[in-house]
């Protein structure tokens, strides 16, 4: 049996009435399409002005939209006075001449921190910025897909992996060597194509009711042993991938794969570092592998470390579980605002510029300029950490790490 309308319709194609009748429908469709475009366009224009403003004022509008977030973390003083001053960023004319460029920053970093950084940068230099916030690696992928046409001037990562990925694809411009000089040299990648501007340490969160600090594993390498089965949580996050890259670099692929399989067998996959923290805090696991700042954020939210059931532990010797991971900033090669973008990096890395914001900001990450110390209560200084010595550029190519993580059945 024939179901095709086209086939059966042929017989009638010569019917003049039908041919004539076709035209009005055609017109209707065209009208419909035009209407759709019109409505779409109308929605666009109003949507655009309602929020980001026109491109000329995008930076300001964006800052204004984020006043309270950037206000609170402004310069690390009390929330109240800050929110006043950052409301003013919208209207106050900076001392320095205003640059014409608006820097478009793609950022995988926690949004409140980036907003605090850009607000302070605009205040200091007069150069406007606009932020595109998203997931770390996803934004890196977006820049890759955009290629030479990318509207991004700068990319700010959370983890060294994604910024390293852009570097390995040749999408980043060289960073001014003087800027790189300002940072903790342990974190500077050998390629010199991106600037470490903040750092996070891998750490353990543990529940003292379930395990004492002395009983914690000596190394995360021990976690594959049977006594740790079902005791700990982990998350196959970007930082975890970095850990795998580090292990491949130090003990080789085969042993790393064995370790991953052991972790998969013994640990509980909590999917994200935040959930590792929350589940340990809820008493579901004795301890978990995560990034240090999650715990400090929670401590601040709850009104102090003493209000938490869990504790944070930094390894007291160079261990894979205590890796120090840099958040990186790079200038996109295709950017038309190279000078301003380099200016941003210079400010971001300087001890009295961006590093102060990171030290004061409540995102609880480590500033990386020597001598600048985080004001987050209880946080050790970067110099005190016994992290392994690693060239950050080993995190760039995550192909093998991904392959092993997938092979171990974690993704």
């Amino acid at each position, binding site marked *: 049996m024939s179901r*095709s*309308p*086209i086939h*059966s319709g*042929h017989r*009638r*194609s010569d*019917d003049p009435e*039908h041919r004539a009748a076709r035209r*009005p*429908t055609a017109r*209707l469709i065209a009208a*419909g*399409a035009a*209407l*759709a475009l019109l*409505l*779409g366009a109308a*929605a*666009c224009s109003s*949507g655009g002005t*309602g*929020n*980001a403003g026109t491109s000329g004022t995008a930076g300001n509008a964006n800052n204004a*939209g*984020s006043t309270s977030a950037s206000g609170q973390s402004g310069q690390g003083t009390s*929330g109240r006075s800050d929110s006043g001053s950052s409301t003013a960023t919208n209207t106050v004319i900076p001392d320095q001449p205003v640059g014409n460029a608006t820097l478009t920053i793609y950022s995988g970093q*926690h949004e*409140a921190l980036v907003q605090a950084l850009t607000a302070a940068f605009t205040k200091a230099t007069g150069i406007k910025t606009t*932020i*595109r916030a998203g*997931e*770390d*690696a*996803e934004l*890196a992928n977006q820049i890759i897909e*955009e290629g030479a*046409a990318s509207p991004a001037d700068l990319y700010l990562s959370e983890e060294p*992996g994604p910024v390293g990925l852009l570097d390995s694809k040749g999408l980043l411009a060289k960073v001014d060597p003087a800027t790189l000089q300002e940072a903790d040299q342990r974190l500077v990648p050998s390629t010199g194509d991106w600037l470490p501007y903040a750092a996070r340490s891998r750490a353990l969160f543990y529940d003292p009711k379930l395990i004492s600090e002395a009983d914690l594993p000596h190394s995360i390498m021990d976690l594959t042993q049977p006594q740790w089965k079902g005791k700990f949580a982990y998350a196959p*996050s970007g930082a975890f*991938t970095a850990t795998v890259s580090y292990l491949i670099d130090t003990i080789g692929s085969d042993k790393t794969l064995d370790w991953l399989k052991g972790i998969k067998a013994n640990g509980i*996959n909590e*999917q994200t570092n*935040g959930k590792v923290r*929350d589940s340990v*805090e809820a008493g*579901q696991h004795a301890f978990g592998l995560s990034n240090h700042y999650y715990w*400090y*954020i929670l401590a*601040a939210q709850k*009104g*102090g470390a003493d209000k938490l059931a869990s504790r944070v532990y930094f390894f007291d010797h160079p261990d894979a579980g205590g890796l120090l991971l840099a958040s990186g900033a790079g200038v996109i090669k295709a950017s038309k605002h190279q000078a301003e973008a380099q200016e941003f990096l210079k400010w971001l890395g300087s001890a009295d510029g961006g590093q102060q914001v990171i030290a004061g900001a409540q*995102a609880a990450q480590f500033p990386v300029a020597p001598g600048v110390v985080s004001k987050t209560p209880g946080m050790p200084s970067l110099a005190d950490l016994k992290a392994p010595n690693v060239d950050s550029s080993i995190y760039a190519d995550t*192909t093998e790490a*991904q*392959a092993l993580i*997938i092979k*171990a*059945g974690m*993704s």
Partner: protein
Amino acid sequence: MSEATESPLAEALYEPQPRGTRRAPRSGRHGRAPRLVLLAAGVVAVASLAPAAYLVLREGFSIGLLWRALDSPSTPELLWHTAALVLTVGAASMLLGVGLAVLVVRTSLPAPRLWIVLFTMPLAVPGFVSAYTWVAASFRYAPSSTAIFGLGGSTLVMSLGLFPYVFLPTVAALRGVDAAQEEVSRGLGRSELRTFLTVTLPQLRVAISAGSLIVVLHVVSEFGALQLLNYSTLTTAIMQRMQVLGSPESARALAVVLVGGAALLLLVEKIARGRQAPARVGRGVLRAPVRWGLGRARWLWALACAAVSLLALGVPLYIAIVGLADGLSGAGAAGADAALDGQVGIDWAALGSAALSTLELALAAGVVATVVGLPISWLYARHPGRFATIAERSVWLAHALPGVIVALALVYLGVRWFRPVYQTPLMLVAAYVVLFLPLAVASQHVGLRAAGRRLDEAAHSLGYGRLRVLVRVTLPLALPGVAAGALFVLLDSAKELTTTLLLIPTGMTTLSTALWSTTNGEVLDFTAAAPYGIALILIGVLPAYLLARRTVRLTA
């Protein structure tokens, strides 16, 4: 007019068969479709397939890569997990959707209209918000319990959010069932139950099957909720490879596997839907169906209905309101400036502008999807055949893909060939349309079928041209179905997060992206996020209410 008024207009998926015929008339009797409609439908279908095509046509894809994706040790587990969740959520949604529909339409349950509204409202709650609140509630009130995580918890949370997609069309279809047939069955000695199973249920097949398809495709493409609930599926693995591992090649290879699975689901549903409608001779008059008396037990059943609503709506709302209260009271507390990334008090300006953009984008998506969907649904309703079927099935495929794949496909295409609209709201609206077009097409199809081709013919014979028939006769009659489609698209667009993050114009925020950034994507803290979550739910309430109201009218 009777054809229009008695059909389940608002209900997306129920396809009433034309009265007195065994099957839909073939196109032969009505000439072939206008070429422009064919062209438009073809263009829309191709556009809908673009994301899937991107997966295999983009450089970097190879059969070897696909093979490695299939051969990877985690793939069987991911496939199994996905299939298991599809089955459990599909079954639970069917059970809830059909069971509640029967309860509301065919029994003496008190306040049926109220329940219809309440059972529609879960559509207003985004999946990741409800998962988030369930996990927060679990950590808050049962810190040591892990019951909410894994297959069980995921089934619970997702079914509670998705069952309305089955419930609404089933209510409408139940209403359309001819009471006379049931009477005959009972008159011939069949029991109530047997009558229901053998006479009534088969007539609900199309509604249940199509509703379940929407549910299942939502399950297949869900990410945020499942990540929070610790359940990994193909989509969560794709997202993790894309977002965290930075391994787009392996993510795309896995997505190809997902597309294959989705195509299989579409085929299965097409078969389950069946070709032939139950025979019915004579026009009959629709009467209020017999309602089964529940006796005193009706209060128990009402209690059960209340429990479902409480779980589906109460938990998200309660946690959001507790979070809001915490956030507001934090303003006066001594440790206020301790709330790190959060903000104390509500930033009304930011909230307002995010709500406005959400509304504008979702409205635009609803309107555009309606216009773009019409050629396909019109073709499918008026000129069914192979081309129409392929075009209709094509628009469903993108619905199964994770948002990130659709988004990156559009980034790739946009940057290369549509540079002027890249990162403009137009691009985002286009993404919403690609993602949610099937919801519009399915509803429109119902509306167009309900409008009845005989009225078209009558108008033709009275001298109307084709355009006038469409504008003066068909569209007005199909309007409720068309409008319902727009509402479904609007609802899903407002809730969308993954694609929005990648395609939104730089500097713009919607409620879902604001929700995402206040919670840093993963940190469980609903104090800063609560206003956005509540606003998002409130924005969804109106369209959900409009959908419910239509159904209420039908059952009145």
